């Protein structure tokens, strides 16, 4: 059994408590228009081209032989790993987990889109006493989710758009399944955090914010909501699009970072209801 993984990040400190090791699964069933990791969307390994590293030596013969690139301007994104290969990397970080209260965060892409290997990794970590977090959009089959829940110590749940029409428009699917799964996670009593990508022009209006607050209150009544993270939009993802397809012509950016006042307003609203709310992370 192998999983397609496109990155490992050590000393990852903004994806759950303590010093973490993040494992990024490749492939996502969603296609958020503002995605900051567009290279994580496809389920297959890809080759990225990082133009500013290219020294124009021609070794790759028009990008046919990426492994020959001396400057690593052509970069393999995504490889197939076994459970043991991933665990070997995870175990190197145990000294840091132990002293920081950290652990592993499975992220993506969508980790639950490769449920078998995710489940095996979670079980291995549980057996080794390693704390686990799963960073997910929750656009998954409820059966998969119920398999994963018992072996997960923390969920990081994306809360994107409450209005179903706009959800469909920007993300390509309706949000009913996601909301239902959120309730399942809450009811399971496994701790979870909500991570809101805060996108100007999409979900920074008062209506959206109020709806998100209502949902948060509902979920926290049901279960163990630890924190709310507000992640203001940035456009780093756009530059990465060029890496996937150097010929791509980017449409003008229709999203923006909400104003400082809007961010502060949303944060204080959540805080006023007793939530621990942080910007970033």
């Amino acid at each position: 059994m192998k999983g397609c993984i496109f990155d490992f990040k050590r000393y990852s400190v903004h994806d759950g408590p303590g010093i973490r090791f993040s494992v990024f699964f490749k492939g996502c069933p969603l296609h958020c228009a503002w995605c900051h990791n567009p290279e994580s969307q496809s389920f297959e390994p890809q080759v990225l081209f990082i133009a500013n590293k290219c020294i124009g030596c021609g070794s790759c013969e028009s990008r046919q032989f990426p492994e020959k690139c001396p400057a690593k301007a052509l970069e393999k994104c995504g490889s197939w790993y076994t459970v043991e290969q991933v665990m070997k990397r995870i175990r190197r970080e145990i000294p840091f987990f132990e002293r920081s209260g950290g652990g592993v965060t499975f992220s993506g892409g969508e980790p639950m889109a490769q449920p078998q290997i995710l489940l095996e990794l979670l079980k291995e970590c549980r057996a080794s006493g390693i704390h686990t977090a799963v960073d997910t959009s929750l656009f998954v089959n409820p059966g998969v989710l119920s398999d994963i829940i018992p072996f997960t110590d923390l969920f990081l749940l994306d809360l994107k758009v409450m209005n179903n029409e706009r959800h469909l428009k920007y993300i390509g699917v309706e949000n009913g399944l996601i909301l239902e799964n959120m309730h399942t996670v809450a009811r399971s009593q496994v701790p979870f955090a909500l991570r809101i990508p805060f996108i100007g022009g999409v979900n920074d209006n008062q209506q959206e914010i109020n709806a998100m607050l209502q949902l948060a209150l509902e979920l926290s009544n049901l279960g163990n909501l630890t924190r709310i993270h507000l992640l203001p939009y940035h456009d780093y993802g756009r530059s990465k699009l060029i890496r996937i397809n150097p010929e791509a012509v980017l449409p003008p950016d229709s999203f923006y970072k909400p104003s400082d006042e809007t961010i502060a307003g949303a944060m204080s609203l959540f805080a006023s209801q007793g939530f621990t709310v942080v910007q970033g992370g």
Partner: protein
Amino acid sequence: MPQPVTPRIARLRQESFDTQPSLNIERARIETQFYKENEGKYSIPVLRAMNFLELCKKKTIYIGPDELIVGERGPRPKAVSTFPELTCHSVEDLHVLNTRELQRYTISQQDIDIYEREIIPFWKGKTQRERIFAQVPDSWRLPYEAGLFTEFMEQRAPGHTALDGKIYKYGMKDFKKMIAQSLSKLDFLNDPYATDKREELTAMDISCDAVIVFAERHAALAEEMASACEAQGNAVRAAELRDIAEVCRRVPANAPRTYHEAIQMYWFVHLGTITELNGWDAMNPGHFDQHLAPFYEKDMAAGILTRERAKELMSCFFIKVNNQTAPPKVGITAKESGTYNDFTNLNIGGVKPDGSDGVNPVSYIMLETIEEMHLLQPGTSIHISAVTPEHFLREGCKVIRRGYGYPSVFNPDVYVQELMRQGKSLQDAREGGCSGCIEVGAFGKEAYLLTGYLNVAKIFEVTLHNGTDPVSGKQVSISTGDPREFASFEELYDAFMKQVRYIVNQKMLVSNYIDRMFAKYAPATFLSVLMDDCIVRGRDYYDGGPRYNTNYIQCTGLGTITDSLSSIKKHIYEDGTFSMDKLLEVLAKNFAGEEKMRQYIINHTPFFGNDDEYADYIAVRVYNDLYDSIEGKPNTKGECYHLNMLSTTCHVYFGTVTGATPDGRLAGKALSDGTSPSHGADTQGPSAVVRSLGKLDQVKSGGTLLNQRFTPSLLKSEDDIANLAALIRSYFALGGHHIQFNVVDTKTLRDAQKYPDQYRDLLVRVAGYSDYFNHMDAALQEDVICRTENQSF
């Protein structure tokens, strides 16, 4: 930013910050006059002690407005003494110092003329430096001139050290009694050295008198100033001056009774040691917080001290240290170690001699003082043992977050093992710590001399050229074969280690010679009073008097050499990507026209600092072999040399004399610093770096150095602080000796290069110390900027 504790401190701090260092010829004039009249009349130790007494009797005494802790080495703050008996500046040196852009020391034309007329002619041919260079063999001179190593002791006296707690229990009068007792026990019938011991002990006795006189002159001046203040109706300052006078009459003649007296006691002792000689790593109170804690607690209980007053006095002490600018070198190369910093490193926290937690209320006062003073000196370090409270570590991390480069972080649990491995008793090891940059020793009981840096990367370059320096074309070392004819990596590695052993031996034979020159011609008779067991043994600090006597050689460029060997092993001997012939050709032309090959090396070679077994195995092997080449070689005191892994700023100088290296580094660029990975080679984040470093058995060294650079964005929240603390604890659990952080982003540093005036107080971590970014030359600035920046994980 936190403000100084009182308006007085704000004024004194600003004055210290703004004062331009100057050279002062008073010490040289008094000393030269004294030598003219007295040289030859006394034994050398007695002559040196009488010279010290003369300086204490005649030098200008300074008590500044508002000061509470008093005393300066020169006649005023940042007026730097010269030491012509060691190295005599030429007229040209003085002109350069007066006019150079960086690390300028002003001096008037009138003083330069006096120097030319009175000082220079007298010392011509008699300085330590001239004596040394008159004797060195070519087998030393050739590799020295090629930059294969440096020699510390040709510029300044061998490293001074740090003190234990004895000066808080005994005054100079007590030491005089101990000296008298030792004198009374001399056995002239059976001990062939009895006469030498008598001279040394007599000299120590005179040295005690010297600092007493020095303090009494301060008392007299304070009283005089108090009367003047009263006459002007300033009763408040008059009362302060009367207090100062009382303190100066009490210490250092007697043991201190109060917190104020304890700080002043140390300060007079400090000034004494840096007045008699010009030792590297100036002088250091050691575990100052632990020494002061009993006084603090007693005075607080008695109601004669408040926390605010305690911090004010501590701030006064910091400012005093900042006023003592390092004496400049001769032969003016700012390259080897260009800084005003004189490396006084206050140890905060750590363990007590019984192994229990040493953190106390004074530790926190010191942490706050670092933040509020934000000055170049003193250097500070926090010492984090497994028994150290988490709260103290996190408070320390919050000071680190300020980005001054202070404090650095040390691991007593490892360095106590290092010191015990070298033969110290458990208690002496626990009383030890770090002085200067990262080197450790048994405080108050050890002479641990840094003898100079070894350019390991350059030795490898010479190996690749069969003993010849490709820069000069001269044969500077032994022939170990043409590498093009080596059939395996092992053959190459063997040749490299033969070169290392040969060069280490060349360096040692001259260091040993210099050791004896200092023992003979420049004994440190006052420092000897302070260092167990000089009085009991009747021997000088430089002559085997201390309980422990260590020589260190500091090896530079572990990252560069590891990455170079990794590149050769993989690409030449395993993959056959290119040949040795091709590599040598490309290195000779500094990769010109070969960017493709250089990029291939940089991007397709396992490098040190990524928790990569291939590279880390090579690093461990080189480290262990450097250890074997140095460890246990006898020094002149019946003890031995040990390995140290410090580079200070020497990796920049060494880089300038080293051609392109097989890791893709271009000619002239800095080598890797300390035991840090090469710049930009570590791409897996700080946990991977510390795991790589943790593979070195650091207990075998007398110190390693790890630089890490964080952007401020990574240290914003309480969680971030907790994670930084956990990173430190993890590294220390993996066996790390030391770690330090620069918390500043590249944009700020680039900005500071463009607009230096707006960044006058931008302190950054350089090596075992911090420096003002705008005091550093362009190469060193670039070096700091190029350290891998850890951000946004």
